[in-house]
């Protein structure tokens, strides 16, 4: 059994008034194994945010199923979602969603506080995490006092501190190089995922080249098969 199984996911945004409804995801199928680092790439409007929101159970799919570690997210009860999310998911939002009422430290603690953890345990976990993200000196600062990149690192720390089963991260990056660190890269266009599996056997530069080529192809309206 895979860690994450996505099959037949569809998402249609209903039109508000008058306008046409948008089919953001048409038919998405893929699986992710434990320990995998998967990148999903696509131009803006292709459906990345929609997909991640569904994976994080922040939004419901119109059709299809999402199964995370045996738990069916499409049928999960509203009341259980918050706890499920807290215990299993780490989510790094595109705009970070740090709370301006909290210092970075308290922002990172938030999911643990919600889970009722003791302060000593929270501190222990953060002490391990902070150096690797290079935010040790920033912990007492408020979000409006730090840069976008620093905020992003705090947001990553918040996603990791619960030791989640899966981390979903939406990041703006204009370099395809970042994605080339992934063990697998998928492309999304017009609500359909194109599996382009790059195994770790190709060199970094080879992988980087392939990703760039694919992105160019997609940008010109070409299809992958």
């Amino acid at each position, binding site marked *: 059994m895979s860690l994450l199984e996505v099959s037949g996911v569809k998402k249609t945004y209903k039109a508000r008034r008058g306008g046409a409804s948008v089919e953001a995801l048409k038919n998405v199928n893929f699986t992710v194994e434990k320990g995998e680092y998967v990148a999903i790439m696509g131009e803006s409007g292709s459906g990345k945010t929609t997909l991640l929101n569904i994976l*994080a159970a*922040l939004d419901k799919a119109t059709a299809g199923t999402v199964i995370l570690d045996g738990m069916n997210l499409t049928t999960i009860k509203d*009341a259980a979602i*918050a*706890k499920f*999310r*807290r215990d299993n998911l780490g*989510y790094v*939002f595109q705009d970070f*969603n*740090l*709370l*301006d*009422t*909290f210092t970075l430290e*308290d922002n990172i*603690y*938030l*999911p643990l*506080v*919600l*889970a*009722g953890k*003791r*302060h000593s345990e*929270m501190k222990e976990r953060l002490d391990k995490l902070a150096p690797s993200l290079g935010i040790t000196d920033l912990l007492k600062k*408020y*979000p*409006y006092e730090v840069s976008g990149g620093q905020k992003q690192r705090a947001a990553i720390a*918040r996603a990791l501190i619960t030791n989640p089963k899966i981390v979903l991260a939406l990041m703006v990056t204009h370099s395809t190089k970042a994605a080339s660190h992934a063990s697998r890269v998928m492309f999304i266009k017009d609500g359909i995922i194109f599996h382009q599996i790059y195994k770790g056997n190709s060199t970094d530069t080879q992988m980087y080249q392939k990703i760039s080529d694919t992105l160019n192809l997609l940008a010109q309206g070409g299809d992958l098969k």
Partner: protein
Amino acid sequence: MKLGLYPKIAADGIRKNSRLYVPYIATCILMIAIFYIMHLLGFSDMLKNFEGASTAKDILQLGTIIMALFGTIFLFYTQSTLIKGRKKEFGLYNVLGMNRVNLGRILFFETALIWIISMTGGILAGIGLSKLAELGFTKMINSSVSYQFTVSTDSIATTVIVYSFIFLFIYLNALRQIWFTRTINLIHADKAGEKPPKANWVIGILGLIILLSGYTIALKIESPLSALAWFFIAVILIIVGTYLVLIAGSVLLCRILQKNKTYYYKTNHFVSVSSMAFRMKRNGAGLASICILLTMILVMISSTAALYFNREETLTTRYPKQINVTATNMGVLENSEEVISKMENAVSKCVKDFGAEITEDMSASYYGLSGYFDNNKTVDIDLDPYTTLSTTFDFDSVVQVYFFDVETYNRLNNKNETLSPGKILLSIDGNIQVDDEIIIGKKTFEVEKKVDYKDGKMKYAVGTSVVSTIVLIVDDLNEAVAAFSEYTDSRGEPMLVWKWTYDFDTNLDSKGQMELRGKIGSYIDDEPGVPDPVVYYSFSRDAERDDFVSTFGGLFFLGILLSIIFMVSCVLIIYYKQISEGFEDQSRFSIMQKVGMTKENIKKSINSQMLTVFFIPIIFACIHLATVLPIVHKLLLLFGHNNVPLLLITAGICVLICGLFYALTYKLTSNAYYKIVS
């Protein structure tokens, strides 16, 4: 930029932020209405023709000034919150090419627009409410004293002037905030939390000192006359002190709670404490505003209720018997047994002719004068105390001196005292220390013994006094006061006043008593040998009762009316606090939900936030009430009210009702908050 564009942008700004501006403007309107009504009552001729009217007016005049002060502080803080929310918008305008002068103009038109709406609405609401009050008065109180709430141009003008200044002040404050903030900080203003004041402990200690000196003054005041002058100072100190203490206290509380890791990092406390810290100063100011309004309500209702429910006792203290005849001299400086017995004759003849009989009576004659007590056994009567008071404010040493003869004392109080030659019996009510002699003017009286004039009917003759009272019981009344006859007050009237009071019951019914009362005058007029300078009045207790009911009923009604308005503004303040914070917290709670917060958590953290601050205003209001009650008691003495237990009971009941109402408001508005954030 074209000038015509500014009002449009300003109006748009208000419309777009109407969720916050509507309750803000509503509060402004109410504040202005309260000010107008208080001014109308305090400064117009509407409250008159009743005993204590001038006191009620004095208090309302102070109330007017207090309302202006309170309105300034309150609107200042509320508007600071509004501006904070708008800074981002102004920052964007700034980025898009408007300079600070342009922004200042937009701000100006915004303030002006709110000023116009609030002014018009406030004065109309004030007039409407006062008309409603008039209706209430005439409906509720079936009285001979009529209350007519006229529309006063004076009050309108004062309201407009005072509130225009307040708005100008508020505008300048907003301008300052926009003007001296860098563009980048404008844009991020809504993200930055409030910084703790640099010297928080200085503010806290200063506030505590101010508050405590207000309390001390309130508790120190001895006589109700001085109460009026110092009351005001005490109230101002208490208001200012409350704001400083609660602001510093709120900052301190947040810091302490955040430092206590085990408390802070609990699911229920984490969010509530951090959002309290985010707006710690504003929180303190809001709590202080609520506290002050609650205090005013408590004081007003408990005092007027005590007056109203004690009216019968006040009436019987003033008129111990069915009918009272009082005579006083105008230049006749002699306690003439002959004149007194002639007047008594005239009265009994009148009663007999009426076909009735006197069942019980009580008669007393005495002299009175007022002076300064110099704290060293001497009463100075060279000065006219009441005219010099306005410059010295030394109310506490004003004393009222009475002279009775020992025969009258024995008769009224059922005693059997005798005096050694040249000695007197002394009775003092008030905070004055006299040992074995007392000097009045230049005359020395040796004290034989101290007695209590209040342990018998003599208290009716002396009456409830607002200043300290000294009663000298002498052997020969005329001889005792002879030396004081030449003293005159500032109008040239003699200081020494002779009085005769005659109280009696009859076998008549209420209607008969009133008719009889009307006849007494002509009998005394016709009695030969009653000298012309003697002026006399006659009263019927049942006739006076109406006056008492309408006076105290009127004041009680006024207290209720003002309290309702205050309560509404209190509700508005709480509502405003909750929804403005709700809109600020909306996005935060949505983020927290994404991170795993449940609706249950939200509810719990709101409750926790509520409980942390809920009791503070009501506790402070109770402390305030407890410290001003002594003054209130003394002020009530001016109305002839002297019933401390009743005052305590009404105060207790008021605290209960007010507390319940406050709790209900808090509950309902926190539901509004919950709806917004979830």
